[in-house]
């Protein structure tokens, strides 16, 4: 399989091409990650700069706090929920783009990406106007007589965090699925049709399995950044919707870098484990793998 992908001179040219991004990543990703890990081995508390000490004390104190494991679990559940729902909502968009929109697909794609023209933070704050006690949702519910007093659980709750994150991620999640569907060999669906499969059966047996790699890509596209999110939770999460990212931010704000670094490492390891499990489940061993 790999041989057919080789192109003459590709290896050397690839190396030259990747030199700059590789240096970039080294300077701004690998080295900072190393510094982060170094901080996690510092003694706990407020420290203005790295010291010549290596200790596991911060790990001991931080990882023995029961509430951190609870917030990690809560963060994991929110990330999982957001990823599943965002992908489920994104799939029809991707499907429409690939098969139904035809000449209007540019328009549909533009519409899907339109929200990105506004800053992410502004959009989170806009949700407060929708979800608040005197917000649009409550006003509408009361106007049509469904409720008689405002419902308090819309804003400052885990539901609010999940809702806003799903809203933010749906257009992103649609892209990898769309690309996958776009590349699909359409004659396979025609063959299914010729062999007597109805459209639903053809979709379930041919299109959906073919698009699985796109679905998994979209899922991790959403889940990994959500695991580390803190801006959404701090704007609409309230006391019950705090995520691990908020606790890390709390450590950093109070200059207690070692504890924050330990939790960041914990988050990193969690994301890595999630990816390994995901890759195993989906049978993806190589980014170019297509498993039907």
């Amino acid at each position, binding site marked *: 399989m790999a041989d057919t992908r080789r192109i003459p001179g590709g290896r050397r040219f690839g190396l030259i091409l990747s030199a700059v991004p590789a240096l970039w990543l080294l300077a701004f990703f*690998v*080295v900072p*990650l*190393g*510094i982060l*890990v*170094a901080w*996690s*081995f*510092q003694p*706990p*508390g*407020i*420290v*203005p*700069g*790295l*010291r*010549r*000490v*290596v200790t596991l004390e911060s790990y001991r*104190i931080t990882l023995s*706090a029961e*509430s*951190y494991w*609870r*917030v990690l679990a809560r963060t994991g559940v929110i990330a999982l929920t957001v990823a599943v729902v965002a992908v489920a909502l994104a799939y029809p968009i991707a499907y429409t783009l690939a098969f139904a929109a035809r000449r209007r697909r540019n328009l549909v794609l533009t519409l899907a990406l339109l929200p990105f023209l506004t800053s992410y933070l502004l959009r989170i704050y806009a949700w*407060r106007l929708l979800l*608040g*006690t*005197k*917000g649009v949702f409550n006003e509408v519910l009361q106007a049509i007589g469904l409720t008689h007093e*405002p419902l*308090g659980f819309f*804003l*400052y709750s885990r539901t609010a965090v999940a809702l806003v994150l799903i809203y933010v991620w749906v257009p992103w999640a649609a892209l990898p699925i769309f690309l996958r569907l776009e590349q699909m060999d359409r004659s396979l669906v025609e063959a299914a049709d010729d062999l007597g499969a109805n459209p639903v059966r053809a979709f379930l047996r041919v299109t959906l399995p073919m698009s699985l790699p796109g679905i998994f890509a979209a899922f991790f596209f959403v889940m990994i950044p959500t695991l580390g999110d803190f801006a959404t939770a*701090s704007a609409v999460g*309230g*006391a*019950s919707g*705090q995520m*691990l990212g*908020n*606790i890390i931010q*709390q*450590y950093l*704000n*109070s*200059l*207690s870098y070692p*504890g924050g670094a330990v939790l960041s490492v914990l988050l990193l390891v969690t994301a*890595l484990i999630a990816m*390994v499990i995901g890759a195993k489940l989906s049978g993806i061993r190589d980014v170019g793998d297509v498993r039907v």
Partner: protein
Amino acid sequence: MPRIVRLLAVLSVLALIGAACAGDEGDGGDGGGTVEFPSGPPAAEDAGPLRLLEWAGYEIPEFHGPFAEAYADVELEYQFADAGSSFYQKLATGGVEADLAHPCSNWVTTFRDADLIAPIDVSRLENWDLLDPNMRELGKIGDHYWFIPWDWGYESLVVNTDVVTDVPESWADLWDPQYEGMIAMEDFSEGAIAMTAWAFDLPYPDLSDEDLEFIKEKLIELKSNIKLFWAGSTDLVQAMVNGDVGIGYAWNDQYAKIVDGGVNAVYTEPSEGRGGWVCGFVITKDTPHYDLALEYIDSAISAEVGKNAIDLYFLGHSNTESAGLADPTTVDLLGLLDSDIQGRTNFALPLTQEQRDKFNQIWSEVLAA
């Protein structure tokens, strides 16, 4: 899988290299030894510039009128910080070089222990005798004053009386189940821990580990009544005005804005006393402009500047004569002349680094719970 192992191995190596390369700059001095006032050129012969680490918005001319008049040629160079911790970080890491900084009383001990600030020769401040005596003492460590109070305010409960019929009369009342999901608390470890200590009659800030464990449990218990933690001042004002919460842990200027937003609100006087914050000036240890810095402080603590702080920013001012010059409506709304309330207010005491570390750890666990 091996790729992950390799990545982790590389990171561990980098971590060790990073730790090995780092200096010992984080070690603070013990603050012991002899203490002397720094010497420098007399203010009249010092051309400056005077470098200030300030809160954004505090660089306005109304806050340094007398100084600007007397030292018209001295340029004021401002840099800004947005939290007690960031004042500390900027000075401690050398990220900012300043002659004066404007942190709050609760950080003074940490600054002094880290050997960042110089003692202040208060005998050279003409307005010193006019300052509120209680606030003055917040800056005293050992035989010297290290911090001169400038602005202050209350921390208490603002209550929307349209929503909350049974207004809490004490900090301890907050634990009442009738307030479920109604409270907005500041995302601030010291405030939350102090409030809990007052409510349960514990000796803040000298809390034993058992006290702290008890406070942690109590705060986790309180979370069912807390709807949100506010970080920025306007977050609370918005949440109160929008009716998302009925009770807020608030500064008095936020109370003024909430009333301004049309809320029927009261600013309570809890039976254990209100909380209070006091911020002010410290002079950095290695300043070459010590005398000029003293002159600046003397100008800032004048009643003339104090009047502006009250009228323009709704702040309290440390000079006891300022409130008499300011707009009576503002003074009245903020209770700035109510010596009875002030006398029972628990102004934020300086914390040691060890206390602050423990408080931060507890607060993070409360947030996560």
